């Protein structure tokens, strides 16, 4: 039987506010345990939550960027359950009335297929603290620094049909929240993580199969692995006559498998009800307009502009707009190069990205600034150096040996474009290679390349290759 995979994602994006969603405590990551938990975060008797207005602004940005409806009125509710790292015995979240709903995002499945993924809702909530099970001699330590950190939970429609699509969607959301400046996207620190709802059904069947919810996925690679493992597990189960049970499963990144956490029967009854300590969030159209004016250029628009203005392919424009920093770098390089769009794109996506990958660096930490790269591209364009020599210049730029012009000067890499000088060298080469000249005359035209190579060797690669070709062609026939 042919099976179809159905996937929906719930992404938790930690909002990049300085203070927590309902208290004034800092959200800074990595502090000593329990040093960033105030009376409100600790859930002391008598304390009350006060909404951080910045999270509302951020949620509205997300809503606008995903073609969603921003709810004129949304309500915080209490999700009641007991857990030691949940100080109040309830999590404040949004339940029936989320702040953002009914939007979508287009993803590129491959170079020429675009797919629209529905966004059911995005709601605001507070994070819980952390339970630390090691180092406490069989006991559990509680760190409440993270308690009350603002999260935007982004729930997709079950519109994805493969792990690859799920990854593409997750990457797109990741890029978007960073573009918007509402989440730092740091997956190691847990600022961006996801749960995946996965089910399979016979190809052509309308009804959804029973789903499993995969928890605790904190990298793009793991999303793909977890989903693929789970799909195989469910298909194997069904094909051997079993049934999938609705349950929550934990992805184990070390063993590349998912295992059951709790079944539907064991699931909590969260007893949601509107939080009487907080007023409904009322958002008027004027506020939405005000936020709309602060939106940066979004990836879709930027991609189109790169195609229109710089003549880039859809693929290249897509790569360069995948994150805001890369796009900014590219445009700064174009500017410094005197408007060389395609050339800049080739270098940013080629040599630069390769070097960054190798060094494990993000674009923001590139040792070669956009200005320096652009300066070098300008010298390629005006013929001062060849593309080949430029690779040497780039390495020197990376090593911090100064500007492109300084490197070209000190290393003597300037291209030889003086015809008489090149003619002299060609003459010498032809005189010193009678055997090869004989072969060429006997019709072995590929020997032509040998002569070019000799000329380049004699000039240490500095001769203008185009001129060498032209002059050699003329002189070889007259020789």
């Amino acid at each position, binding site marked *: 039987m042919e099976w179809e995979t159905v996937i929906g994602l719930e992404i938790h994006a930690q909002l990049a506010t300085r203070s927590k969603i309902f208290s004034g405590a800092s959200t800074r990551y990595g502090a000593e345990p329990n040093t960033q938990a105030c*009376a409100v975060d*600790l859930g*002391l008797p008598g304390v009350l939550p006060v909404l951080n207005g910045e999270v509302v602004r951020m949620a509205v940005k997300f809503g606008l960027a995903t073609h969603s409806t921003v709810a004129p009125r949304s309500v915080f509710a209490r999700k009641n359950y007991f857990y030691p790292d949940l*100080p109040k*015995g309830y999590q404040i979240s949004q339940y029936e009335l989320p702040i953002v709903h009914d939007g979508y995002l287009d993803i590129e499945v491959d170079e020429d297929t675009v797919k629209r993924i529905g966004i059911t809702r995005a709601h605001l909530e507070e994070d819980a603290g952390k339970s630390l099970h090691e180092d406490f001699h069989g006991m559990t330590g509680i760190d409440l620094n993270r308690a009350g950190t603002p999260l935007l939970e982004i729930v997709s429609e079950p519109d994805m049909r493969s792990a690859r699509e799920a990854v593409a969607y997750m990457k797109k959301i990741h890029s978007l929240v960073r573009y918007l400046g509402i989440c730092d996207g740091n997956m190691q620190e847990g600022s961006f993580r996801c749960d995946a709802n996965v089910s399979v059904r016979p190809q052509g069947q309308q009804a959804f199969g029973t789903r499993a919810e995969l928890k605790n996925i904190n990298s793009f690679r793991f999303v793909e692995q977890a989903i693929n493992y789970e799909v195989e597990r469910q298909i194997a189960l069904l094909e051997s006559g079993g049934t999938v049970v609705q349950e929550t499963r934990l992805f184990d990144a070390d063993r590349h498998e998912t295992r059951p956490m709790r079944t539907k029967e064991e699931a909590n009854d969260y007893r949601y*009800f509107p939080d009487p300590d907080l007023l409904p969030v009322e958002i008027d159209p004027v506020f939405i307009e005000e936020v709309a004016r602060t939106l940066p250029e979004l990836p879709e628009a930027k991609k189109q502009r790169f195609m229109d203005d710089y003549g880039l392919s859809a693929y290249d424009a897509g790569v360069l707009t995948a994150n805001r920093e890369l796009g900014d770098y590219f445009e700064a390089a174009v500017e410094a190069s005197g408007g060389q769009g395609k050339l800049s794109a080739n270098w940013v996506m080629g040599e630069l990205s390769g070097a960054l990958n190798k060094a494990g660096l993000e674009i923001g930490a590139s040792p070669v600034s956009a200005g320096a790269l652009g300066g070098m591209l300008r010298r390629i364009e005006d013929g001062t150096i060849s593309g080949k020599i430029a690779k040497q210049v780039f390495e020197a730029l990376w090593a911090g040996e100064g500007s492109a012009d300084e490197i070209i000067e000190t290393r003597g890499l300037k291209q030889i474009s003086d015809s008489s000088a090149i003619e002299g060298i060609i003459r010498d080469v032809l005189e010193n290679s009678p055997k090869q000249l004989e072969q060429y005359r006997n019709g072995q035209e590929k020997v032509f390349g040998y002569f070019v190579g000799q000329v380049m060797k004699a000039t240490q690669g500095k001769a203008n290759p185009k001129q060498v070709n032209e002059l050699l062609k003329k002189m070889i026939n007259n020789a």
Partner: protein
Amino acid sequence: MHQKTLVELGAGLRQGEYSSEELTRVCLDRVSALDKQLNSFITLTEELALQAARDADARIRSGEAGPLTGIPYAHKDIFCTRGVRTSCGSHMLDNFIAPYDATVTQQLNAAGAVMIGKTNMDEFAMGSSNETSFYGPVTNPWDSETVPGGSSGGSAAAVAARLVPVSTGTDTGGSIRQPAALCGITGLKPTYGRVSRYGMIAFASSLDQAGPFARTAEDAALMLGAMAGFDLRDSTSVERAVDDYTGGLNESLQGLKIGLPTQFFGAGLDSAVAAAIELALDEYRKLGAVITEISLPNSQLAVPTYYVVAPAECSSNLSRFDGVRFGYRAEHPADLEDLYKRSRGEGFGAEVKRRIMIGTYALSAGYYDAYYLKAQQARRLIREDFMRAFEQVDVIMGPTAPSAAFRLGEKADDPVTMYLSDIYTIAVNLAGLPGMSIPAGFAADMPVGLQLIGNYFEEARLLNAAHRYQQVTDWHARCPQGYE
């Protein structure tokens, strides 16, 4: 000195007739002498009080005294007070030293009032007789065999017994007005949102509201002035200037339209209480008020609605008492579940557990619509009744409680009968309106309270109506025997 009102004491302090330290010692001495019987205090803060009194004296000498500066008061043990045990009447918080001050505490401190201790109360404010307290029941100064009412029973008894001139209370379903009535003093529950709830241990967040106890409306006005105000730390507090509650106290009641809800005078109302209320209404007629009957047709929904909304909210509010971070923790828990079960099982009393279970049930999947949502709808109807009534009248009046103080133990084993003692007060909380109880005579030698209900933020009008009544009657000045 202990017979003087806050207004009189304030004048005496500012004129140098006595110091706050002397006055505070008088109060502390009365507590040591008389509170064994009453049990109105859980914690006495003698050292802190004397220090605060000396600070107040310095402030008085420098001419910067306000009306409350140097005035001793008793603070319901539901308000967090930094460095002082804040028990909420519960074993659960018997060991809880609050690390911060409630906003109300801060404001009274800032006004220079002198807290002499924390008063007894029903556990987590759940009760109408003060019998659910972990610290034992409070007795009524008028008859030690009877209850003072609840949940703010300690604060009411302490003022009635002249241990302090004023005190604080909280009112979720009558917990200021009913004990004020049963103890023969003046109590005011402000409009929901008028006084900050920050630092006031939550029972039912959408109903809880703090207010003062005093012997006179004038004293209550001064206390309310210090307690009220917008607070950024409480999202449900209302950003609105605090009225001058004393300025209009003496205004004429000529033409004041008073509404009597027929539903407050039906079956279940003690006839002696009804008679006392009738006499009080006659006084209002003499003062020029016009009295008409009105209808609050959904009144009978108030008690059942309340006993869904309040337990639902409390079941969630009290989840934080889990033995993990503060409060009572069971010894040698076998595992996490055992820690939760025994800490809560041993830390909470029977009434608290009953309400947590009722509330948990009401919020459970499959029951939510039938209980919680239904209760919210009923709550709207109750509110609309009042809104219609206030289109016709200025103030609504009636009995505060269906009977005078009942005997200790009389209703303790019958929760439903106990719940019905709040039948006239609860609707006011559901609607979020301000309400007052003032002494209005006696029924079989026990005090009767007249309830005054106003429109939103019309505390000043209630205080005016109460004050004028107190100018022509002396019920509020009567002192229980043995406490003169």
